[in-house]
């Protein structure tokens, strides 16, 4: 076995109430490509942040070339030769390539003014770019580069600090196929020069083609390791799942009624070359699963009129509806409980009362003057119905807990007449008690004939709450599961773009 370059042992990271990493062990050898996989929230990014010195672990040891560290600072990580190619690229678009590569370590010219020596920096970056086969110059403005080219800049930056380990977090999520192949070639070249790469990806195909070894994380723990000759999609998926899911499911009061919302051939701005077909019936909760960035939120935003629809049609009860703006959508009874409630769901500085009536204030006004008592009444009704815990409906939403804030967002929509409701990560950051209240509310809405789409990255929630699950993969629906097909394995297969196994194959 090659020489061990880097070793993490017993790394734990606890946030109050959450164990993000639990006794993780990881070893990287010189010149090896280590695949790191796991579901959304398995702890991959947290682990890499520990390695890059961005966050300190609560316990454990980081061993680099024989030296032990209880924690690292960003500078120590850099000195130790660990470089990070970020998921969201961290480049300054207003500066040129050379300036980005040397950001914070600018080469200075002599003389009393210590001016930045652009010529020197550019001269040093040129060979790095040549090595990566990049066809832009060091003086190109980053703003003019494509995502793939920007990635090359990040890698050049890593090379410029003589990195020994380069961490790539979902590097191909925005790349075309040929750009991805180019990146994989670069990785092979890095490997040939003895540089190790930690490759984090949801795309198991890429992992298969470039990884020498794969480590699987689940719920913040290392649950398995696969050598190159043990790699297969099935083996990886099997390791990624494997929790016992709690039974949350409440069946609908009656079978779903005809009608509902049909999304036919819809094209969103996030994936202009993909079409989405999806239908949700009245009275059912359709779970919408998929990996982060699969296009679920973009779909909800398009249907709600926030982003333009580039194509396709939305029908409610078989009648086409136009949704050019949120106002149109709301008129049609399409409501969205957004992912980021503090940013898009609520005006935090306004009282509960004004938030509840924000979308329907004209209904409580005569000649455009607000009827205060009618408004108070509806706000109080909603606060009671949703059991919003607050001393009064006149206190600002900012003082409420996450669960109660979410209930205020719900109150805003439930004071009107919903026909189709999108819930985008409805229980993120919400405590357990409020969660089950929100599930019960969704069920009761469905039983009243509302069609419900619940976008969720929480597998327990997807499987435990939905009547059916649609899974999205890279901008389109890769499959729909009925309840008897529900399993974490099936959802995950569809989420990474694999077809479902037939029953016989699964049984064997």
């Amino acid at each position, binding site marked *: 076995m090659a020489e061990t370059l880097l070793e993490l042992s017993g790394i734990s990271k606890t*946030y*109050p*109430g*959450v*164990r*993000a990493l639990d006794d993780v062990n990881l070893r990287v050898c010189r010149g090896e490509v280590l695949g790191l996989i796991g*579901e*959304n*929230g*398995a*702890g*991959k*990014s*947290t682990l890499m*942040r520990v390695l890059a010195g961005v*966050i300190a672990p609560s316990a454990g040891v980081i061993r680099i070339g024989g030296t032990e560290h209880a924690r690292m600072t960003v500078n120590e990580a850099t000195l130790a030769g660990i470089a990070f190619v970020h*998921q969201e690229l961290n480049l300054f678009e207003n500066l040129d390539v050379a300036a980005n590569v040397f950001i914070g370590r600018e080469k200075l010219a002599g003389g009393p003014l210590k001016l930045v020596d652009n010529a020197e920096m550019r001269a040093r970056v040129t060979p790095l770019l040549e090595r990566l086969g990049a066809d832009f110059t060091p003086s190109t403005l980053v703003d003019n580069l494509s995502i793939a080219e920007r990635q090359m800049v990040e890698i050049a930056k890593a090379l410029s600090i003589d990195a020994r380990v380069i961490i790539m977090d979902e590097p191909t999520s925005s790349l075309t196929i040929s750009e991805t192949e180019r990146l994989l070639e670069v990785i092979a070249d890095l490997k040939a020069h003895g540089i190790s790469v930690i490759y984090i990806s949801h795309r198991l195909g890429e992992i298969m083609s470039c990884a020498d070894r794969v480590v699987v994380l689940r719920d*913040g723990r290392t649950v398995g390791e696969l050598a190159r000759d043990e790699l297969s999609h099935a083996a990886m998926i099997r390791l990624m799942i494997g*929790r016992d899911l*709690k039974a949350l499911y409440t069946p609908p009061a009656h079978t779903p009624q005809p009608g509902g919302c049909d999304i036919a051939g819809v094209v969103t701005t996030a994936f202009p070359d993909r079409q989405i077909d999806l239908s949700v019936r009245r009275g059912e909760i359709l779970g919408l699963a998929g990996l*982060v960035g699969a296009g679920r939120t973009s779909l909800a935003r398009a249907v709600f009129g*926030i982003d333009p629809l580039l194509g396709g049609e939305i029908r409610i009860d078989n009648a086409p509806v136009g949704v050019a*703006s*949120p*106002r149109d959508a*709301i*008129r049609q009874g399409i409501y*969205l409980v*957004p992912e980021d409630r503090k*940013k*898009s*769901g*609520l*005006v*935090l*500085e*306004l009282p509960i009362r*004004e938030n509840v009536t*924000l*979308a329907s*204030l*004209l209904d409580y*006004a005569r000649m*455009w*003057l*607000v009827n205060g008592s009618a408004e108070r009444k509806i706000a109080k009704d909603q606060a009671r119905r949703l059991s919003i*815990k607050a001393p009064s409906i006149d206190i600002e939403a900012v*003082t409420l*807990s*996450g*669960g109660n804030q979410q209930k205020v967002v719900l109150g805003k929509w439930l004071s009107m007449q919903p026909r189709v409701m999108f819930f985008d*990560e409805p*229980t*993120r*950051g*919400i*405590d*357990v008690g409020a969660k089950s209240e929100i599930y019960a509310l969704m069920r009761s809405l469905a039983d009243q004939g509302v069609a419900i789409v619940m976008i969720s990255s*929480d597998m*327990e929630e997807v499987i435990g709450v939905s009547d059916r699950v649609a899974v999205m993969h890279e901008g389109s629906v890769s499959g729909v599961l009925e309840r008897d097909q529900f399993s974490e394995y099936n959802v995950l297969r569809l989420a990474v773009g694999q077809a479902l196994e037939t029953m016989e194959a699964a049984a064997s």
Partner: protein
Amino acid sequence: MMKKELGLFLLLAVISAVTGAINPAFLSFVNLLNMANLIGLFGVFALGEGLVIITGGIDLSLGSMFALLGVVFIDLLTTYQVPWPFALLLVLMGGLALGGIQGFLITRLKMQPFIVTLCGLLIYRGAARYYTSDSTRGFGYGDEASTLSNIASGNVAGIPNTFIFLIILAVILGVLLHRSVYGRWLYAVGKNEEAARFSGIRTNLVIATAYVISGGLAGVSTVLFVFYTNSVSPSSFGNFYELYAIAAAVLGGCSLRGGEGSILGIVLGTALLQVLQNLVNILGIPNSLNFAVMGTVILIGVLADQQLQARRRRKAALAGLARTAPKSKENTRLQNASAHGAAALPTTTGDQA
């Protein structure tokens, strides 16, 4: 909400009392009426500026608008002998139109309010100077608009009409801002435009309307100022007046970040500014210090207000924590966790169930 206005009112009262004690001329009937007139003149367009500031924007073009609309107004009455009701109507519509154009540029073409209205400031001023070849326009000896002149600069039982106009407009706008659906939308848009849009509010329309109202009030102010000075010299008429309006609005509790402020506050802010100017004269402070005094008071006023607010917020936060102690603690923890873990932790909150 009312605390701020009360504080401002007390400040106004204290300053007036102290000035009056030092020099009783300050509280003389003549001086008070003179101040009332100036408060009326400067208050009308400060109301519009306040609305714009509540959207999170700013209108720098008001002073130049006065010059452009002013020379056009006088020309309509004198050179073209247009009956005064039409001239008045045209000037008001001119103000609304300029406001509409600015609102369109800001909301539909997504330009920054500062830039749009700064260019407005330059363009209107230039247009006014070019139109008049930089010569002062005034009324001749005829009585082109004596009726309107009496309305604009007269008084009722000694109270200047300008002040009465301010009160009437303040009441109308107060109802609009504090009681109407539009006012509610304006605050919501100013505080969190995205959440307002996600609630189906046509945020562009709401914001553009504020600029239109501001332009319309600028039209009203133009007429009042024209009859106050009886002539318009296009290069100096209304210079810096937009800054008075911004100062009054900020002093009255509007935040330049948007979403905060009240009509009463803006009126009190205008009054305080005029009182300060007046006391500089009355107390024999060198006139050249006028601006410096104003600047100092605004600086101290806004600073004091911020400190008080921060203290109030800390108290409220503590009270909130005590009220929902175990729950909310749990929750902030979870939120911290997801904030740190960001993309990595979307499901962790579910895992601990």
